[in-house]
């Protein structure tokens, strides 16, 4: 056992010395390889973290949201709607909501204006989301003016900025009192944006939705599970497209690795002959090369993965911001809860460490089984 360990260390010494002879080339390879793992692992960790976070917090979203459609477009809930729902069995609690969008020409960003259900916000005051506060440079106590769609200027005082920890969900929120909301948007009295419902028996949600649709034919119930599904598949969409982009990088790397691994130079061939002549077995040569493959690919895997971890969970996925940002001006700064998915990790490991090690070993195989007497003739 100790012999075995000593021997492997000698083989590692040798393969490192061999790698060290083309230091720049091999370090370059390691860097490219690590970068590839970094990108793959970052995408993996980021989407996984985002999905898990969405799953966690959206478990609290309303069981059913009822919209009213007019000509296929969402429209306001007219007075009297609530009473009709109240007669449907199984509906436990309902709440008509007021919310809408506001485009702020100052920073060219969209905000979500919303009237909280329970919290009472005094007239003339606002509670704002953290990204919005950052963008407009607001702290509690500041005054801010918005010109409403009707052209009037409204000035509010910021009562509070929502906690940064909830920024993923609340980045662009503006919470205000119902009176202020109606005045600001000229919102018709008695009308609402939509209705949230909770259902007494969770197994009955679909039935209740069907009854709602039957009783109110112009309505569209949206179930919590549908909302969750939307975000469960977040970023799965057009993964093919992302993969296509990555495939280019993968291919380039494959060529690089193939060139490096299979382009067994005459020099390397000669060295293998020498090693065999002076008493190395074919297996020793293969083991030495195996270590070379493992050292490079495992290092790249670990470097890439750990860098991705730090990037995604400690630097808030800084490199993904431009992608996420899209065309929006406001976007959240959020810190994802670290997640490890064993299967994903194993997949990443398999697809990064295994092919390279194999690519190193295969060409060496043929060279390693040649007769050692060839060295006598060089």
């Amino acid at each position: 056992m100790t012999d075995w360990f000593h021997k492997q260390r000698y083989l590692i010494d040798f393969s490192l010395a061999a790698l060290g002879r083309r230091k720049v080339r091999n370090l370059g390879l390691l860097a490219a390889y690590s970068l590839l793992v970094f990108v793959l692992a970052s995408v993996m960790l980021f989407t996984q973290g985002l999905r898990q976070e969405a799953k966690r917090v959206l478990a609290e979203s309303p069981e059913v949201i009822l919209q009213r459609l007019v000509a296929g477009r969402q429209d306001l809930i007219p007075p009297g709607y609530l009473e009709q729902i109240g007669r449907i069995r199984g509906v436990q609690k309902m709440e008509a909501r007021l919310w809408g969008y506001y485009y702020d020409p100052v920073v060219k960003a969209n905000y979500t204006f919303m009237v909280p259900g329970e919290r009472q916000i005094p007239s003339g005051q606002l509670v704002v989301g953290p990204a919005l506060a950052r963008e407009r440079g607001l702290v509690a106590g500041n005054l801010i003016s918005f010109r409403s769609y009707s052209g009037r200027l409204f000035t509010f005082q910021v009562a509070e900025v929502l906690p940064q920890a909830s920024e993923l969900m609340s980045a662009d929120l503006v919470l205000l009192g119902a009176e202020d909301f109606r005045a600001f948007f000229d919102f018709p009295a008695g009308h609402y944006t939509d209705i949230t419902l909770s259902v007494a028996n969770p197994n009955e949600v679909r039935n209740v939705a069907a009854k709602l649709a039957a009783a109110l034919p112009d309505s569209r119930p949206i179930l919590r599970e549908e909302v969750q599904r939307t975000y469960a598949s977040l970023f799965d969409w057009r993964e093919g497209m992302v993969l296509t982009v990555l495939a280019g990088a993968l291919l380039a790397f494959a060529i690089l690795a193939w060139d490096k691994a299979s382009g067994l130079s005459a020099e390397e061939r000669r060295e293998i002959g020498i090693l065999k002549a002076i008493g190395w077995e074919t297996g020793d040569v293969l083991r030495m090369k195996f270590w070379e493959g493992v050292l490079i690919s495992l290092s790249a895997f670990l470097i890439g993965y750990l860098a991705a971890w730090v990037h995604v969970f400690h630097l808030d996925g800084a490199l993904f911001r431009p992608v996420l940002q899209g065309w929006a001006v406001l976007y959240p700064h959020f810190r994802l809860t670290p997640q490890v998915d064993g299967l994903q990790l194993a997949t990443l490991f398999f697809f990064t460490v295994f092919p390279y090690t194999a690519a190193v070993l295969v060409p060496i195989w043929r060279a390693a089984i040649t007769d050692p007497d060839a060295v006598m003739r060089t």
Partner: protein
Amino acid sequence: MSLRPSTLALGGLALGLAGLLATWAEAGLQAQAPDPGTPALVRELGLTDPALFTEARYTRHLALSDRHAPFQDHPLGFDHFPSASLVAPPRHD
């Protein structure tokens, strides 16, 4: 005598593996104490969508968007905003 290359390499790999385990441990610890504020806010306001894409109303509230809005398109359909390439259209069932 200087350090053997294999000592450095194996040490480095051991360090990396320790880091890998540390990520696991970190994930485990954080999972113990998730921040309760966000779910509470979601419940209070009845929120349905993270504020990932605020460029348009149908990207801001994907789950609530109109059925004819972009994102509902055929997979080969051309959407206006880049975020469309990141999110799947809702399933109609």
